[in-house]
């Protein structure tokens, strides 16, 4: 499954990526392609560096080795201004929403427009209201971020991410810690935005069910490697017992329920005594 040539339709291609933090290898020779106009999910257990992958793609972190190209540009060879230009075409939805707490919802969504364009305020208003309408929160424009629920904050952040009409959006754990209704709303929004705006979406998540509903392709990462990839259906049918355990959420399997420890009976008995 090591691909060498980028797929014809790949917006992002990752080749032989290695990254380590301290002595811990987060990625070991990972290669993957993300297709234009599709929703690609990167899944895996917590702590496997899924968010790190997003930061590498966005150029916030530097790999030890390997190449990441976005729309034909090698992210880590760009000058600072070029990287910033590329980022204007990327939206990123952080887990916490990352709304600026000292501004209202309206000003948050207007923030990238005011920073990067010289549009008159009337046009900014129109754009902001359009983006807010797209996420269904036009009525919440006067609220401050601390008055929003977690799900609303994420939707506002989504409106802000699409403010500059990017070509792609990176979602960092969009479903974590949401109630079922917010979750359903976000699933619907990601799908709808992807098709109506012609975006390319990358979802990093460990919520198997919600992600399977909308993803076109799923990559499963564990221990620094890509274990398998394919459509959600293919993943459910996977012959790998590890993937089976991950997709069904079974408590025990190839990933043991117990943290490695010495023999249970030995541990319970007082040391040095044997009955």
């Amino acid at each position, binding site marked *: 499954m090591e691909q060498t040539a980028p797929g014809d339709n790949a917006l992002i291609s990752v080749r032989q990526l290695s990254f380590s933090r301290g002595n811990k290898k987060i990625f070991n020779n990972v290669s993957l392609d993300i297709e234009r106009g599709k929703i690609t999910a990167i899944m895996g257990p917590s702590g496997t560096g899924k968010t790190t992958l997003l930061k590498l793609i966005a150029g916030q972190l530097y790999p030890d080795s390997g190449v990441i190209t976005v729309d034909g540009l090698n992210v*880590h060879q*760009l*000058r600072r201004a070029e990287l*910033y230009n590329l980022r204007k075409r990327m939206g990123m939805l952080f887990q*916490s929403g990352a709304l*600026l707490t000292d501004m209202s919802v309206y000003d948050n969504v207007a*923030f990238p427009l005011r*920073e990067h364009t010289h549009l008159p305020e009337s046009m900014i208003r129109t754009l902001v209201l359009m983006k807010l309408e797209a996420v269904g929160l036009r009525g919440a424009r006067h609220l401050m971020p601390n008055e929003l629920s977690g799900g609303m904050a994420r939707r506002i952040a989504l409106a802000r991410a699409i403010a500059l009409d990017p070509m792609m959006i990176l979602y960092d754990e969009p479903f974590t810690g949401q109630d079922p209704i917010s979750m359903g709303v976000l699933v619907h929004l990601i799908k709808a935005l992807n098709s109506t705006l012609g975006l390319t979406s990358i979802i990093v998540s460990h919520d198997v069910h919600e992600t399977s509903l909308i993803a076109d392709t799923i990559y499963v990462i564990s221990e620094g490697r890509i274990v398998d990839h394919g459509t959600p259906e293919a993943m459910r049918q996977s012959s790998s017992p590890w993937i089976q355990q991950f997709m069904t959420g079974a408590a025990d399997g190839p990933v043991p329920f117990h943290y490695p420890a010495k023999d249970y009976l030995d541990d319970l008995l007082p040391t040095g005594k044997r009955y």
Partner: protein
Amino acid sequence: MRRPGPALLSWVEPRFFLLLTLSGLFSVVLRPRLLLNQLYSVGVLSFLIIFISGLFVGMVLGLQGYYILSDFGAEETLGLMVAASLVRELGPVVSALLFAGRAGSALTAEIGLMKATEQLSGMEMMAVDPIKRIIAPRLLAGLLSMPLLAGVFSTIGIIGGLLVGSGMLGVDDGAYWAQMQAKLDFYDDIVNGFIKSVVFGFVASWIALFEGYDAIPTSEGVSRATTRTVVNSAFSILGLDFILTALMFGDS
């Protein structure tokens, strides 16, 4: 210029934090609105504590000074004593310490929380440089506010000393002003005190901003960074005060 590799960058950034911030100051000039907002939260919000502390410090100086000077029959020089100690030392130093406690800790907590809640990271993702957009206006606001606050502190202190000296203890208010004007020198005392307050304002804001930017992005990390801001600022202000005093008032 290619961007440097990861190891180099993580080494470079904290060390060149100041340099990056200073280069960001130019962009602040183009956006006075950012500066104005920060002048409010750094300057205006510190005004009350500076005003009240200045008043009390001046009143205590008036009282203590009177007790000591009256032993020598030199109550007339009370104004000089109060004004000289305020303008040369207490004005810049105490207002800088209060500034570090009030505005510095608030800056660290604000920046640290922005980091912990991924706001800085999010800004970078929106192709907005947080050093230019967030850090630089705050540094400039601190730099501008500190001399103004120190000026208010000393002025209020001198008036506080007059209230006690002339109002309660019966020192002639004409003598209070005359001794002050005769012996305080504009260049040696006022300008040097002003320079001190500019230096302290710069150092206190810089430490506060750096600690916030460098904080470990957790609640514990932010609270520790806030403590470090106050401790490090106090050390730096008092240490620098000694050096500046030795340089300025050494020979005269």
